[in-house]
């Protein structure tokens, strides 16, 4: 009986903890910090295998944060260059090709610092929280974030399958080899 109760309690706690994360509307919380260390963009590294600190995107598994990212994506005219993920002036974001890496902190760096071939720097215009929200949305476009947290269709013209319908994906060109990543 004790055993069953313990299982039940654990299960209940698990439900609460997991879905809390996904459903949380972080309104007043402290802003997430910028990644302390940038993840290299290239796989090729001289010398012994380098161990890097990959951070999780703080909103990757947060449905509300991802949708806020979606709102910013339109408001900050990201959609002007990257369209609804298919690209245009800028490269597509819904495919599996990542010039500067697909890891949250790599994308954070791409947004915050800009990239030489035309991506502007946003760190003076957006705060960390907003950039992280954009990171989550951008990753959701190509199916890199947990499915349950990705946005469904928008109240706009139907131009592409919603991120929630995009199959889970593995990115290409995404930084370090799996063996070199510390969990």
């Amino acid at each position, binding site marked *: 009986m004790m055993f069953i109760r313990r299982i039940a309690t654990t299960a209940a706690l698990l439900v609460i903890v997991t*879905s*809390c994360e996904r459903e949380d509307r972080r309104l007043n919380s402290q802003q997430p910090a910028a990644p302390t260390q940038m993840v290299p963009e290239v796989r090729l590294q001289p010398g012994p295998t380098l161990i890097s600190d990959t951070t999780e995107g703080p909103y990757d598994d947060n*449905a509300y944060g991802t949708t806020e990212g979606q709102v910013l994506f339109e408001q900050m005219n990201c959609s002007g260059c990257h369209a609804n993920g298919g690209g245009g002036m800028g490269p597509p974001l819904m495919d599996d090709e990542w010039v500067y890496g697909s890891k949250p902190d790599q994308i954070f760096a791409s947004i915050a610092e800009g990239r030489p071939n035309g991506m502007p720097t946003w760190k003076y215009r957006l705060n960390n929280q907003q950039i992280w929200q954009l990171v989550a949305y951008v990753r959701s476009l190509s199916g890199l974030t947990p499915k349950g947290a990705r946005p469904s*269709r928008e109240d*706009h013209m139907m131009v592409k399958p*919603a991120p929630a319908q995009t199959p889970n994906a593995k990115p290409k060109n995404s930084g370090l080899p799996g063996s070199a990543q510390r969990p």
Partner: protein
Amino acid sequence: MTTLPVNEKLPADVTLSPDELLREAMALDTTWRDKPGVWGWLSAVDHKTTAKRYIITAFLMFIAGGIEAALMRLQLARPENNLIGPDRYNQLFTTHGTTMMFLFAVPIMTAMGLYFVPLMIGARSIAFPRLNAFGFWNYFVGVVFLYVSLFANTGPDTGWFAYVPLSGPAYSPGHRVDVWAQVVTFTEIAALCGAVNIIATVFKMRAPGMSLNRIPLFVWAQLVVAFMIVFAMPAVATGSTLMLATDRAVNMHWFNPAEGGDALLWQHIFWFFGHPEVYIIFLPAVGMVTPIIETFCRRQVFGYTAIVMANITTAFFAFGLWVHHMFATPIPELGQSLFTAASMVIAIPTGLQIFCWIATMWAGRPRLTVPMLFVLGFLFTFINGGITGVMLASVAFDKQAHDTFFVVAHLHYVLIGGGLMPLFGAFYYWFPKITGRLLKESWGKLHFWLFLIGTNVTFFPMHVLGLNGMPRRIYTYLAPTGWGPLNLLATAGALTIALSVLIFVVNAAKSWFGGELAKENPWEAAGLEWATASPPPPYNFIHTPLVRSRHPLWEPTVELPVVVGLRSDRREILVTTTFDARPDSRHNSPDGSIWPLYTALSMGLVFIGSIFSPYFVLGGLGVSLVGLLGWAWQSTQPSGVERVALPDGPIVERV
């Protein structure tokens, strides 16, 4: 006395001896009693068992909804309060509304019907007991789902009418609104199962002699409401399950204006259900008022036919008013005026019923017992809500009051006055029948007075607040608005209500386990439900009573006429003709089964799973299929020799 529709064929001097009755009762008890043990408990299909589970669950939901309300009132007690943030608050008021409407009010009204309709019409059981159990389990899954979600921070947060596009995929990410849509689905299924059951039961299972004009008014109300459910619930099912959920899950565009969808469609669909919903709660409640008044004034109600007609007209008109929830939307003005007129017309049947009750009291000898007090409380409170309701029918005024605390006040006056007060009266009135014990009158009076005062202190100030500009669903307000003092008062009132309900709960608990034992008919009431033991045995009646008037137990005869001949070795029930209630056939009622629970759980898998992936629907349907097959297998077990009435031939006996 009107002529009887039933031939009384047997000699007039035969009565059944106590020995015979005892033997019959024991045989019936073996046949009808739910199986013991956990498995038997889960397989129970007795309509009283199911209804009791419904009532208790729904009442727990009332408490839960009440706690949510109290928390909201505490947050609003003073301006710029920081007790509950907007996110929690939005979940609270949505869950409060959803709980009170979908998980408390409608189910408990249906549940009262499921308990008492068979008893009041002298039937052994309900038409489809397994379907009934299935309905309950569905509802129960919904209840558990909503509250697990709420504690997992996934409580719905877009209001109990979940207006799109706020509740749509673009503005409500995550699964909060999905939870709402599926909870609604569960309760719809439950309500529809109940409604079909009640319609079939009332139409085909009335005691011999209970022609249409002798049906008790509570049963009439339940019948009318069952029809309303059949036409109203599919609307919200369509809206929430077939439109909102599909918009959110598989990218449909029902409500996406860009691709030709329409946000107003949701409002039309929702209020086409939502307005009748109010009467689905209100009509059973007034059905409870009538027997209470009759019993405690010791008079048959004045204007039986008028009240029946009033119920039916109300039901009809209830479907023609939905637009008065949408006066502030850009819809044509001419249409609005039409709905104003319709909304005012519905006041007439309601007024008529009130005058009939007052007339009954006038002609009778009222005894101010607790149920009677609640009926009086109902009159004071409900009329207030009704009058504000007529005011809100005015397009011009509604545009001012709509979506403000004035409406909050109005709807609580209507629902507490028109639903909860009669329900509390009914609890006191029928508690002895359900439990076999009486509730304490003194506690009851305290409960009543605190409740009446609390209700008015809470909700009356809200009228003023609303007109002073306070919109509903705001989690805070600024001090300069001047809304502080009246809000504080309302909070005090809410706490008073909470106290009164606590008193009731304690009273009920104490009485149930150690209250004064009730007789078979403690109030000397007239209805058939009082013709059997308190609490009623699983088979309800040893022999099916025969009805000669609207008030069988007030008949001046010494004996209760009954029909005999139903088998006691299997669950046999008497089916009568639809209008005259002549005995027509005997029907074998199913016994306990685990399949309703299994099927409800597998449906739960379908609906809850659909939130996460459409594949769950396929898988869940597969699992449900097993349940349906098992159910069907069990329903087609050989049952011995049957007398078959061939459609155009004689009765033949077959195995």
